[in-house]
């Protein structure tokens, strides 16, 4: 294998930084969800990379758990966005001011 651990870690740092930029700047709720997905993927890449180089099977197991939980999170997040869109006719998070159902 010609790739080193540091290469994967640097890509993962770049993805994390892009995701944090998205979460902090974007006001569109769906775009924020994109950014969260990118952050979760950076974490998974880190888990699998360290698991390959240690070597250990636990990292892959955790990555699989993390992917499954991310699927649940996206389903609930998108349902929340749909409900908020129906109430406010908008996807701007600055407009979501009330918690009243």
């Amino acid at each position, binding site marked *: 294998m010609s790739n080193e651990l*540091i290469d*994967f870690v640097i890509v993962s740092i770049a993805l994390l930084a892009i995701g944090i*930029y998205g979460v*902090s700047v974007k006001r569109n709720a769906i775009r924020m969800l994109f950014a969260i997905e990118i952050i979760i993927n950076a974490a998974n890449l880190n888990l699998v990379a360290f698991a390959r180089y240690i070597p250990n099977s636990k990292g892959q197991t955790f990555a699989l758990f993390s992917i499954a939980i991310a*699927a649940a999170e*996206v389903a609930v997040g998108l349902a929340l966005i749909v409900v908020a869109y129906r109430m406010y006719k908008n996807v701007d998070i600055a407009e979501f001011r009330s918690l009243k159902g």
Partner: protein
Amino acid sequence: MADAVFLAISVLTIGSAIAALEVRSLIYGSISLMGTLGGIAGYFLLLDSPFVAMFQIAVYIGSIAVLILFTVMLVRRQLIFFKVEDKRRRYAGVGLMLVMMVALGAIILSSGIKTIQTDAPPIDFRTIGEDFLTYYWPALVLMALILASSVIGALTLARREDIENEQRTN
């Protein structure tokens, strides 16, 4: 040093991650997000973890990306191109991103993992299955319950009560 395949996947992944956040249309944004997720699956293949790569493709590209695409198509057309951004906030975000990259990069480079390489054989997926069913079985059961409850929660949240009441009164 990294090889050509790695560099190609890096360009695809990071480029489409930036595109997913910056492209004007949300539909193209979600398609670029698929590119990022596929690139991560490519990294998993490079890391000799084909099982995780297949899982990534099945769950992320097969269900999450398609779910996002359908939700984007459900919202109104002008909201797909909706973009309100503070200029100052944007610059602050870019600054935060660069600071984060430099700081974390410096920490990683100063740690001892700089030249770690491995000749160990890749881990067989049978080991992962064994892990799941022996040591981690409570977590596996819990995960199944969480998935089921999240699907039920999503369905109840997105239900339209007004239409149901109308049908009942008719």
